[in-house]
């Protein structure tokens, strides 16, 4: 039985066709990545699975139960960490978690709450009011809230957006642990690196449509994520560019030049040599892995970077 099954899903907002005929299955025990730029429809899709948003057409089920007709059961089976940082300023951490347990009918859940707080390094803050917590701590409380009823399927909507590197690492470790313990994980992110590091299978959503859906290895084999971005700063603005680089330019503003290079066939040194030969004095150089924008360029250009 699939953890999540979505068939023919459509969602319209007044001016936007937010989801266009989505078909998607997430298997039980899978670590699934849902990627897409802002506004792609990731959060809408997750909200529909969680019962937070109504939809126009289609079938959505969690572990075989319809999210509309059998919502009580599906909401017990799924735990969602929303993207927006939210908190209830009236309560402390333990109260928040006890209340969240109670909503699911779990009145004596302190042993699990203690375990969760320990795993998320919240124990010391158990008596602290939510207002007094840092952003990172609030994010951890949200994760604990999503897990308080021990759901089989855990959905994390951009859990690492806006968190520092240290917390991101801790969250990755914690999410991996959840997966090892048998939870199905669905992670949305717009960091390709994050999806690459964690997910087994990845769907890429753009403008309400799934533009790629495959396991990570197959996506990489198709060339997704095979490019890198190189930003060059020159002493003077470049008037023209060497012909050999024309196809690789993504952006050119003043003395800033942004190029998208194939990790395997393009040499950074060759690019720099070409620029120097063209009279450019290079003052700075930055290299980054491909981001989603690059991936979309790759996908929409049929793999030619």
């Amino acid at each position, binding site marked *: 039985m699939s953890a999540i099954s979505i068939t023919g899903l459509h969602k319209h*907002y007044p001016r936007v066709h937010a989801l266009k005929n989505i078909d998607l299955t997430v298997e039980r025990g899978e670590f699934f990545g849902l990627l897409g730029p802002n506004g792609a429809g990731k959060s809408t899709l997750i909200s529909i699975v*969680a*019962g*937070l*948003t*109504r939809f126009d057409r289609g079938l959505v089920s969690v572990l075989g139960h319809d999210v509309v007709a059998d*919502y*009580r*059961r599906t*909401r*017990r089976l799924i735990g*969602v960490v*929303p993207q*927006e*940082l*939210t*908190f*209830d*300023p*009236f*309560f402390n951490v333990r*109260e928040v978690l006890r*209340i*969240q*347990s*109670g*909503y*699911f*009918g*779990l*009145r004596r859940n302190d042993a699990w709450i203690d375990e969760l707080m320990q795993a998320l390094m919240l124990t010391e803050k158990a008596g602290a009011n939510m207002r007094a917590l840092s952003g990172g701590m609030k994010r951890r409380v949200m994760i604990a*809230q*999503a897990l308080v009823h021990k759901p089989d399927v855990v959905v994390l909507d951009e859990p690492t957006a806006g968190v520092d590197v240290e917390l991101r690492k801790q969250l990755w470790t914690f999410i991996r642990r959840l997966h090892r313990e048998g939870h199905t994980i669905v992670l949305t992110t717009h960091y390709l690196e994050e999806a690459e590091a964690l997910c087994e299978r990845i769907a890429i959503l753009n403008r309400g449509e799934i533009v790629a859906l495959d396991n990570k290895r197959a996506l990489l084999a198709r060339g997704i994520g095979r490019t890198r971005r190189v930003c060059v700063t020159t002493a003077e603005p470049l008037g023209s560019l060497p012909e050999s680089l024309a196809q690789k330019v993504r952006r050119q503003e003043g003395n800033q030049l942004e190029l998208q290079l194939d990790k395997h066939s393009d040499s950074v040194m060759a690019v720099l040599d070409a620029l120097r030969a063209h009279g450019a004095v290079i003052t700075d150089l930055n290299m980054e892995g491909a981001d989603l924008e690059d991936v979309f360029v790759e996908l929409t250009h049929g793999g030619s970077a």
Partner: protein
Amino acid sequence: MNPAGLYTLFYKEILRFGKVLLQTLIAPVITALLYLLVFGHVFEGRVQAFAGVSYTAFLIPGLVMMSVIQNAFANSSSSLIQSKVTGNLVFVLLTPLSHLEFFLAFVLAAAVRGVLVGLGVYFAGTLFTPVPVQHLGFILLFAFLSSAVLGATGVIAGIWAEKFDQLAGFQNFIILPLSFLSGVFYSIHSLPAIWQRLSHFNPFFYMIDGFRYGFFGVSDIAPGVSLLVVAVSLAVLSGITLLMLKTGYKLRD
């Protein structure tokens, strides 16, 4: 049913206003007492609404009910708008609570706050002058039903409003005038005919008149009629609220 979930949401709402008692219970009692002091001082001996009932005694049940109305509304509406604005309502919407359980928890918690504030105003008022109790059943029934009506209205307003400003508009342009013009400070028989007729379109008038009947055994209109109006108001507003919750209006768009 998810009775433990319903109880938790109800308990959370009680705990919420319990954490800010100064604002949610004590301040409304003080406000009502100020009205009692000022209006009692000005009109005592000059106005007699019911035969054999002093103006201050007449005023107390009116102020009690006005406080019940305003605070029951404030409880559900402010809790909802705060949860919406801060975003934490999502953690309630993610749970297996049904729309009926959601409704009951908010309305019952609003009723508890309304009745508690009402009790505070009543006991503080009796320090000034004794107020008889003729029909306790009517008093309790009107207090509960009226606070439930306003609790449901608060849920409607809390769902509808997208910002605090809109909620303040609802409170200041609908709830406040209707509660002030409902016969808290006077018997409608002292009004010109046109205003008397208009008062009959104000549901709060029936709440206050029926409630007052419980204390004095006298009212402007038959208490059974008032009870019917309040009960029908509750049924209609509950229906609207439940429909909004069931369809997810502004909550699950």
